Protein backbone atom coordinates (compact mmCIF):
# COMPACT_ATOMS: atom_id res chain seq x y z
CA UNK A 1 0.00 0.00 0.00
CA UNK A 2 1.57 3.29 -1.06
CA UNK A 3 -0.78 5.88 0.45
CA UNK A 4 0.10 7.13 3.91
CA UNK A 5 -3.39 8.40 4.81
CA UNK A 6 -6.42 6.40 5.86
CA UNK A 7 -8.62 7.53 3.00
CA UNK A 8 -11.29 5.85 0.95
CA UNK A 9 -8.81 4.67 -1.69
CA UNK A 10 -6.66 3.08 0.98
CA UNK A 11 -9.64 1.31 2.55
CA UNK A 12 -10.93 0.17 -0.84
CA UNK A 13 -7.52 -1.14 -1.83
CA UNK A 14 -7.15 -3.03 1.45
CA UNK A 15 -10.66 -4.51 1.34
CA UNK A 16 -10.40 -5.54 -2.32
CA UNK A 17 -7.05 -7.22 -1.78
CA UNK A 18 -8.34 -9.05 1.29
CA UNK A 19 -11.56 -10.26 -0.36
CA UNK A 20 -9.83 -11.33 -3.58
CA UNK A 21 -7.23 -13.27 -1.61
CA UNK A 22 -9.74 -15.09 0.60
CA UNK A 23 -12.08 -16.05 -2.23
CA UNK A 24 -9.15 -17.02 -4.45
CA UNK A 25 -7.27 -19.15 -1.94
CA UNK A 26 -10.14 -20.67 0.07
CA UNK A 27 -12.66 -21.17 -2.73
CA UNK A 28 -10.78 -20.82 -5.99
CA UNK A 29 -13.18 -18.08 -7.06
CA UNK A 30 -12.31 -14.85 -8.84
CA UNK A 31 -14.48 -12.01 -7.57
CA UNK A 32 -14.78 -8.51 -8.97
CA UNK A 33 -15.14 -5.34 -6.92
CA UNK A 34 -17.86 -2.84 -7.81
CA UNK A 35 -18.17 0.86 -7.08
CA UNK A 36 -18.02 1.48 -3.33
CA UNK A 37 -20.97 2.93 -1.45
CA UNK A 38 -19.96 5.33 1.33
CA UNK A 39 -22.60 6.30 3.85
CA UNK A 40 -25.01 3.52 2.91
CA UNK A 41 -26.91 1.74 5.66
CA UNK A 42 -26.64 -2.00 5.27
CA UNK A 43 -30.04 -3.42 4.59
CA UNK A 44 -30.91 -7.03 3.88
CA UNK A 45 -34.45 -6.63 2.55
CA UNK A 46 -35.17 -10.16 1.41
CA UNK A 47 -34.05 -13.34 3.14
CA UNK A 48 -30.34 -12.91 3.73
CA UNK A 49 -27.33 -13.28 5.96
CA UNK A 50 -25.50 -10.61 7.93
CA UNK A 51 -22.18 -11.29 9.62
CA UNK A 52 -20.62 -8.70 11.94
CA UNK A 53 -17.55 -8.46 14.13
CA UNK A 54 -16.08 -5.74 16.32
CA UNK A 55 -12.82 -3.91 15.69
CA UNK A 56 -10.88 -2.43 18.61
CA UNK A 57 -7.71 -0.40 19.08
CA UNK A 58 -6.90 3.25 18.43
CA UNK A 59 -9.75 2.94 15.98
CA UNK A 60 -12.94 1.13 16.85
CA UNK A 61 -15.92 0.00 14.84
CA UNK A 62 -17.26 -2.99 12.99
CA UNK A 63 -16.61 -5.00 9.90
CA UNK A 64 -18.97 -7.39 8.23
CA UNK A 65 -20.47 -9.08 5.23
CA UNK A 66 -24.05 -8.99 3.96
CA UNK A 67 -25.55 -11.05 1.19
CA UNK A 68 -28.67 -12.88 0.07
CA UNK A 69 -29.47 -16.38 1.35
CA UNK A 70 -28.68 -17.77 -2.12
CA UNK A 71 -25.28 -16.11 -2.12
CA UNK A 72 -24.50 -17.38 1.40
CA UNK A 73 -25.34 -20.95 0.31
CA UNK A 74 -23.17 -20.52 -2.79
CA UNK A 75 -20.20 -19.32 -0.69
CA UNK A 76 -20.58 -22.22 1.75
CA UNK A 77 -20.91 -24.71 -1.11
CA UNK A 78 -17.73 -23.43 -2.73
CA UNK A 79 -15.88 -23.60 0.57
CA UNK A 80 -17.12 -26.99 1.73
CA UNK A 81 -17.44 -28.66 -1.68
CA UNK A 82 -21.02 -29.77 -1.03
CA UNK A 83 -24.46 -28.36 -1.78
CA UNK A 84 -26.44 -26.24 0.67
CA UNK A 85 -30.04 -25.70 -0.50
CA UNK A 86 -30.85 -23.43 2.43
CA UNK A 87 -29.15 -21.40 5.14
CA UNK A 88 -28.26 -23.58 8.13
CA UNK A 89 -25.61 -23.55 10.88
CA UNK A 90 -22.86 -24.64 8.51
CA UNK A 91 -23.71 -21.88 6.03
CA UNK A 92 -23.73 -19.27 8.82
CA UNK A 93 -20.44 -20.68 10.11
CA UNK A 94 -18.88 -20.45 6.63
CA UNK A 95 -20.05 -16.86 6.15
CA UNK A 96 -18.70 -15.97 9.61
CA UNK A 97 -15.33 -17.48 8.79
CA UNK A 98 -15.16 -15.69 5.42
CA UNK A 99 -15.93 -12.44 7.25
CA UNK A 100 -13.29 -13.21 9.86
CA UNK A 101 -10.61 -13.86 7.25
CA UNK A 102 -11.44 -10.89 5.02
CA UNK A 103 -11.81 -8.33 7.82
CA UNK A 104 -8.76 -9.82 9.56
CA UNK A 105 -6.66 -9.38 6.47
CA UNK A 106 -8.15 -5.91 5.88
CA UNK A 107 -7.28 -4.72 9.39
CA UNK A 108 -3.75 -6.12 9.07
CA UNK A 109 -3.33 -4.10 5.87
CA UNK A 110 -4.39 -0.81 7.42
CA UNK A 111 -2.71 -1.30 10.81
CA UNK A 112 0.37 0.64 9.69
CA UNK A 113 -1.96 3.67 9.54
CA UNK A 114 -4.30 2.92 12.45
CA UNK A 115 -1.99 1.22 14.92
CA UNK A 116 -2.62 -2.38 16.04
CA UNK A 117 -6.25 -3.42 15.83
CA UNK A 118 -8.01 -6.26 17.62
CA UNK A 119 -11.04 -8.13 16.39
CA UNK A 120 -13.90 -10.05 18.00
CA UNK A 121 -15.25 -13.37 16.77
CA UNK A 122 -18.06 -12.87 14.21
CA UNK A 123 -21.77 -12.97 14.96
CA UNK A 124 -23.86 -14.22 12.06
CA UNK A 125 -27.60 -13.82 11.73
CA UNK A 126 -29.98 -14.80 8.96
CA UNK A 127 -33.46 -13.53 8.32
CA UNK A 128 -35.43 -10.83 6.56
CA UNK A 129 -35.53 -7.06 6.74
CA UNK A 130 -32.26 -6.51 8.62
CA UNK A 131 -30.58 -3.10 8.81
CA UNK A 132 -27.37 -2.22 10.61
CA UNK A 133 -27.19 0.84 12.81
CA UNK A 134 -25.39 1.85 15.98
CA UNK A 135 -25.85 4.22 18.88
CA UNK A 136 -23.42 6.80 17.54
CA UNK A 137 -24.78 6.94 13.97
CA UNK A 138 -21.40 6.17 12.53
CA UNK A 139 -21.17 5.98 8.77
CA UNK A 140 -20.81 2.62 7.11
CA UNK A 141 -18.84 2.09 3.94
CA UNK A 142 -20.04 -0.76 1.73
CA UNK A 143 -17.66 -2.49 -0.66
CA UNK A 144 -19.74 -4.50 -3.17
CA UNK A 145 -18.35 -7.53 -5.01
CA UNK A 146 -19.80 -9.95 -7.51
CA UNK A 147 -18.93 -13.32 -9.05
CA UNK A 148 -20.73 -16.04 -10.97
CA UNK A 149 -24.07 -14.25 -10.77
CA UNK A 150 -23.86 -13.65 -7.01
CA UNK A 151 -23.20 -10.39 -5.22
CA UNK A 152 -22.27 -9.52 -1.65
CA UNK A 153 -21.07 -6.51 0.28
CA UNK A 154 -18.23 -6.17 2.74
CA UNK A 155 -19.09 -3.39 5.19
CA UNK A 156 -16.93 -1.34 7.54
CA UNK A 157 -17.36 1.53 9.94
CA UNK A 158 -14.36 2.91 11.79
CA UNK A 159 -13.93 5.78 14.19
CA UNK A 160 -11.00 6.91 16.33
CA UNK A 161 -11.36 5.49 19.84
CA UNK A 162 -12.20 7.68 22.88
CA UNK A 163 -8.70 8.91 23.41
CA UNK A 164 -7.93 10.33 19.99
CA UNK A 165 -4.28 10.41 19.03
CA UNK A 166 -3.05 13.06 16.61
CA UNK A 167 -2.49 10.37 13.99
CA UNK A 168 -6.05 9.09 14.34
CA UNK A 169 -7.43 12.65 14.34
CA UNK A 170 -5.61 13.58 11.11
CA UNK A 171 -6.71 10.38 9.43
CA UNK A 172 -10.31 10.84 10.58
CA UNK A 173 -10.44 14.37 9.18
CA UNK A 174 -9.18 13.07 5.86
CA UNK A 175 -11.60 10.13 5.80
CA UNK A 176 -14.56 12.28 6.81
CA UNK A 177 -13.85 14.61 3.88
CA UNK A 178 -13.81 11.68 1.50
CA UNK A 179 -17.19 10.44 2.72
CA UNK A 180 -19.02 13.72 2.03
CA UNK A 181 -21.31 13.72 -1.04
CA UNK A 182 -19.79 15.50 -4.04
Amino acid at each position, binding site marked *: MTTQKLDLNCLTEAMSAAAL*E*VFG*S*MMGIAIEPEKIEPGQATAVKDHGVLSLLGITGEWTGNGGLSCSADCACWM*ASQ*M*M*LCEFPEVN*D*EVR*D*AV*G*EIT*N*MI*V*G*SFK*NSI*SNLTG*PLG*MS*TPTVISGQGMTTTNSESREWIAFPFHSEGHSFRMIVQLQPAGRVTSRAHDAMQHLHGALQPA
Partner: protein
Amino acid sequence: MDILIVDDSLVLRKILQRVIRNAGINVGQIQEAGDGQAALQCLDAFKPDLILSDINMPIMDGLELLKRLKASDSLKSLPVIMISTEASTERVMESIKLGACNFIRKPFIEDDIREKFDSLAKTTVRKG
Protein backbone atom coordinates in the same frame (compact mmCIF):
# COMPACT_ATOMS: atom_id res chain seq x y z
CA MET B 1 0.96 -38.38 12.58
CA ASP B 2 -2.12 -37.85 14.79
CA ILE B 3 -3.42 -34.29 14.91
CA LEU B 4 -5.77 -32.27 17.10
CA ILE B 5 -7.39 -29.33 15.28
CA VAL B 6 -8.69 -26.55 17.55
CA ASP B 7 -10.90 -23.92 15.93
CA ASP B 8 -14.32 -22.51 16.84
CA SER B 9 -15.41 -22.76 13.22
CA LEU B 10 -16.73 -26.19 12.23
CA VAL B 11 -16.30 -25.20 8.60
CA LEU B 12 -12.65 -24.27 9.06
CA ARG B 13 -11.96 -27.52 10.92
CA LYS B 14 -13.40 -29.50 8.02
CA ILE B 15 -11.51 -27.47 5.42
CA LEU B 16 -8.26 -27.79 7.34
CA GLN B 17 -8.70 -31.58 7.46
CA ARG B 18 -9.30 -31.62 3.71
CA VAL B 19 -6.31 -29.38 2.97
CA ILE B 20 -3.99 -31.47 5.18
CA ARG B 21 -5.03 -34.69 3.46
CA ASN B 22 -4.83 -33.09 -0.02
CA ALA B 23 -1.35 -31.79 0.77
CA GLY B 24 -0.11 -35.36 0.83
CA ILE B 25 0.82 -35.27 4.50
CA ASN B 26 0.91 -38.68 6.11
CA VAL B 27 -1.77 -38.29 8.77
CA GLY B 28 -3.36 -40.87 11.00
CA GLN B 29 -6.16 -39.88 13.33
CA ILE B 30 -7.47 -36.31 13.31
CA GLN B 31 -9.67 -35.08 16.16
CA GLU B 32 -11.32 -31.69 16.57
CA ALA B 33 -12.11 -29.29 19.40
CA GLY B 34 -14.09 -26.04 19.26
CA ASP B 35 -12.02 -24.05 21.80
CA GLY B 36 -9.06 -24.33 24.15
CA GLN B 37 -11.04 -25.79 27.01
CA ALA B 38 -12.53 -28.52 24.81
CA ALA B 39 -9.02 -29.22 23.50
CA LEU B 40 -7.67 -29.79 27.01
CA GLN B 41 -10.55 -32.16 27.75
CA CYS B 42 -9.88 -33.99 24.49
CA LEU B 43 -6.21 -34.40 25.44
CA ASP B 44 -7.20 -36.50 28.46
CA ALA B 45 -7.98 -39.36 26.08
CA PHE B 46 -6.31 -38.43 22.78
CA LYS B 47 -2.53 -38.19 22.47
CA PRO B 48 -1.78 -36.35 19.21
CA ASP B 49 1.64 -35.70 17.70
CA LEU B 50 0.67 -32.15 16.81
CA ILE B 51 -1.91 -29.49 17.70
CA LEU B 52 -3.11 -26.96 15.13
CA SER B 53 -4.87 -24.17 17.00
CA ASP B 54 -6.67 -20.99 16.05
CA ILE B 55 -5.81 -17.96 18.22
CA ASN B 56 -9.08 -16.06 18.30
CA MET B 57 -11.69 -18.33 19.94
CA PRO B 58 -14.42 -17.92 22.55
CA ILE B 59 -14.34 -19.57 26.02
CA MET B 60 -10.57 -20.25 25.92
CA ASP B 61 -8.47 -18.74 23.16
CA GLY B 62 -5.38 -20.24 21.54
CA LEU B 63 -2.90 -18.27 23.64
CA GLU B 64 -4.43 -19.45 26.91
CA LEU B 65 -4.44 -23.01 25.57
CA LEU B 66 -0.76 -22.65 24.73
CA LYS B 67 0.01 -21.37 28.27
CA ARG B 68 -1.82 -24.32 29.83
CA LEU B 69 -0.01 -26.80 27.58
CA LYS B 70 3.39 -25.36 28.35
CA ALA B 71 2.60 -25.41 32.08
CA SER B 72 1.82 -29.12 31.96
CA ASP B 73 4.70 -31.59 32.42
CA SER B 74 3.01 -34.18 30.27
CA LEU B 75 1.98 -31.82 27.44
CA LYS B 76 4.66 -29.16 27.26
CA SER B 77 6.71 -30.93 24.58
CA LEU B 78 3.70 -31.32 22.27
CA PRO B 79 4.29 -29.19 19.13
CA VAL B 80 1.66 -26.52 18.52
CA ILE B 81 1.19 -24.64 15.24
CA MET B 82 -0.99 -21.55 15.57
CA ILE B 83 -3.47 -20.51 12.88
CA SER B 84 -4.82 -17.00 12.60
CA THR B 85 -5.77 -14.13 10.33
CA GLU B 86 -3.61 -11.98 12.59
CA ALA B 87 -0.38 -12.20 10.60
CA SER B 88 2.62 -10.44 12.14
CA THR B 89 0.66 -8.92 14.99
CA GLU B 90 1.53 -8.88 18.65
CA ARG B 91 -0.66 -11.92 19.34
CA VAL B 92 1.25 -14.00 16.80
CA MET B 93 4.56 -12.86 18.28
CA GLU B 94 3.21 -13.67 21.73
CA SER B 95 2.24 -17.17 20.63
CA ILE B 96 5.78 -17.81 19.39
CA LYS B 97 7.18 -16.49 22.69
CA LEU B 98 4.80 -18.80 24.57
CA GLY B 99 6.24 -21.77 22.72
CA ALA B 100 4.29 -22.26 19.50
CA CYS B 101 6.58 -23.94 17.01
CA ASN B 102 5.15 -22.26 13.91
CA PHE B 103 2.35 -20.19 12.50
CA ILE B 104 -0.06 -20.59 9.57
CA ARG B 105 -1.91 -17.56 8.30
CA LYS B 106 -5.58 -17.74 7.32
CA PRO B 107 -6.66 -17.98 4.54
CA PHE B 108 -4.33 -20.97 4.32
CA ILE B 109 -3.09 -22.70 1.20
CA GLU B 110 -1.85 -26.25 0.72
CA ASP B 111 1.72 -25.19 -0.09
CA ASP B 112 2.00 -23.21 3.12
CA ILE B 113 0.66 -26.06 5.23
CA ARG B 114 2.94 -28.60 3.52
CA GLU B 115 5.92 -26.33 4.13
CA LYS B 116 5.08 -25.95 7.85
CA PHE B 117 4.65 -29.73 8.26
CA ASP B 118 7.96 -30.35 6.45
CA SER B 119 9.64 -27.86 8.72
CA LEU B 120 8.16 -29.55 11.78
CA ALA B 121 9.28 -32.99 10.56
CA LYS B 122 12.87 -31.75 10.06
CA THR B 123 12.92 -30.21 13.53
CA THR B 124 11.57 -33.40 15.07
CA VAL B 125 14.14 -35.54 13.24
CA ARG B 126 16.93 -33.18 14.31
CA LYS B 127 15.82 -33.33 17.93
CA GLY B 128 15.23 -37.08 17.80
